[in-house]
């Protein structure tokens, strides 16, 4: 074997070296403009009128070409962003959550996130895209776009330089991760079937209207045109407040896991959660910077804010933990980063890099106390802290956005017009509060209603035996890790 490998390898080496000279043939010409060839020799000919006419024609053609080039650049970033946001749910969130539960429930948790990737997608195509972004009233969209009717490849009012379907698929990824975030609250004890039905209804009843109000044409909270212009660049209220608050309601309604808090339920693999958290951070660039719906300076600004917010929050949480518990934990650091990403989400397109650092630091510390102290005080069992991180972080971020937003970054109210409190527009904080309040109200009422319905019909909770045996076995008939070989 060895000698044979040696021979093969030498052969390859020779081939390569032999190949090098041959390569001299490759003239790359990185420097010459790629299309130098195209330039038509500009010999002046014909009357001025002719030449002008031909110029006008060429210019018109080029206008089209320029628009196409602009689309390619922006669409390239938006498709990348859409993929990144999907990655946040699977495997990102699935791992983050999966690592935090006990071995016997790891697949059940990952399966819940994965189910959202499948079910919410079909639902979106059938009806929810239309409800969220179709033209309708101030609260919800119409049904004209059901089955994606009329959702084609031309640009749209939502994003002038990318195909409407790019916008549609990008927004879908948000609709997927939002319910997936909620699953953290009732992990390890709820029926898969009940979860499915609940989430389908929740997406229709809570997510769609909220998305429409904040981002939809004519939405009540639409920052540009709404009655209460609420700044939410990438979903602080739409995604995190709704999911976080619904998670809280869910945790209270469903009740604690058997044995909680007496029985220890330490994460079965912080390593998995670590991977998940890093993928969340990575994907979040698509989530926030992608929300610029183009690849220009605004995307850059949001990208920077996102990264700074995450980093500062990781420091904030870890420092708080270090001081309080005497040791900085990896779980703390990643939880902090996620909290920062949540808090910076609504602000990402409006704040300066230093503003992002401030928001992150605050969010890291606040969420730490929400999770470590507040949860214990109230004593509910939000298994994976969906509320402590997303509900609290989202609410905090939405308010802070009203404080730190700068017109120099994104003059959404007009160039030079004061945007946030620090710029002198105190009123904005109120508008932010309105947005948050509506999100809370909608989430509480909607979730409670749906919970009662689902509980009465299918029943939410698994049996004590099933919970004891673990959901992987009892609901899915499989195990995350095989012991025997």
């Amino acid at each position, binding site marked *: 074997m060895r000698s044979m490998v040696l021979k093969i390898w030498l052969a390859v080496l020779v081939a390569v070296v032999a190949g090098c000279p041959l390569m001299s043939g490759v003239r790359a010409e990185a420097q010459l403009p790629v299309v130098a060839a195209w330039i038509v020799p500009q010999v002046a000919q014909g009357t001025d009128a002719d030449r002008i006419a031909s110029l006008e024609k060429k210019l018109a053609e080029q206008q089209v070409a320029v628009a196409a080039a602009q689309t390619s650049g922006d669409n390239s970033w938006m498709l990348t962003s859409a993929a990144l946001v999907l990655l946040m749910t699977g495997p990102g969130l699935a791992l983050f959550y999966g690592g935090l539960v006990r071995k016997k429930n790891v697949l059940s948790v990952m399966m819940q996130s994965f189910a959202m990737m499948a079910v919410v997608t079909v639902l979106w195509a059938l009806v929810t895209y239309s409800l969220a972004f179709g033209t309708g009233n101030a609260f919800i969209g119409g049904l004209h776009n059901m089955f994606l009717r009329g959702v084609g490849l031309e640009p749209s009012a939502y994003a002038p330089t990318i195909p409407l379907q790019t916008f549609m698929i990008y927004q879908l990824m948000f609709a997927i991760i939002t319910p997936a975030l909620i699953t953290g609250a009732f992990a390890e004890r709820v029926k898969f079937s009940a979860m499915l039905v609940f989430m389908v209804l929740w997406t229709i009843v809570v997510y769609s209207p909220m998305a429409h109000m904040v981002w939809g044409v004519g939405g009540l909270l639409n920052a540009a045109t709404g009655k209460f212009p609420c700044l939410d660049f990438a979903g602080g209220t739409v995604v995190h407040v709704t999911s976080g608050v619904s998670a809280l309601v869910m945790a209270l309604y469903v009740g604690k896991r058997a044995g909680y808090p007496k029985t220890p339920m330490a994460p079965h693999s912080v390593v998995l959660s670590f991977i998940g958290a890093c993928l969340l951070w990575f994907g979040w660039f698509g989530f926030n910077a992608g929300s610029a719906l183009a690849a220009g300076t605004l995307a850059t600004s949001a990208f920077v804010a996102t990264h700074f917010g995450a980093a500062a929050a990781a420091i904030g949480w870890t420092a708080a933990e270090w001081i309080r518990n005497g040791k900085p934990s990896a779980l703390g650091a990643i939880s902090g980063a996620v909290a920062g990403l949540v808090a910076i989400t609504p602000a990402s397109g409006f704040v300066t890099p230093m503003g992002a650092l401030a928001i992150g630091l605050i969010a890291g510390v606040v969420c730490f106390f929400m999770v470590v102290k507040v949860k214990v005080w109230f004593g509910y069992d939000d298994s994976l802290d969906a509320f402590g991180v997303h509900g609290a972080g989202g609410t905090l971020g939405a308010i802070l956005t009203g404080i730190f937003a700068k017109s120099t970054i994104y003059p959404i109210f007009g160039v030079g017009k004061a945007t946030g409190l620090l710029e002198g527009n105190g009123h904005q904080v109120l508008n932010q509060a309105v947005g948050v309040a509506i999100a809370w109200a909608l989430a509480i009422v909607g979730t409670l209603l749906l919970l009662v319905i689902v509980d009465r019909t299918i029943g939410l909770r698994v049996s004590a035996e099933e919970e004891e045996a673990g959901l992987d076995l009892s609901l899915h008939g*499989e195990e995350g890790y095989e012991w025997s070989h």
Partner: protein
Amino acid sequence: MQKIEAVIQPSKLEAVKDALVEIGVQGMTITEARGHGRQKGHTEFYRGREYSVDLLPKVKLETVVSDDLLDKTVQAIITAARTGTIGDGKIFVTKIDDAIRIRNDERGELAL
């Protein structure tokens, strides 16, 4: 000295441990185990292939106690580990001829 080996439900480990400490039995050694008995297993499906799993997760707890503590210990384990359903497990008792504490060569009951 007697060695008490108890095969119990994993979920009962904490309770049993506390019960033992309660009655002053500090020392014990635990190993993860798989058990087969009357308790029926379950089936799993992977890509449609059916696997019947009849080796179920158990925990094996061993503690060596002085003869006089035997009954008390056994009783403590039973009370803490019982759920009343098939699969609760067994307790086995054997005589131990000698025990040594590695740290300081103490022998016999002193070493427990």
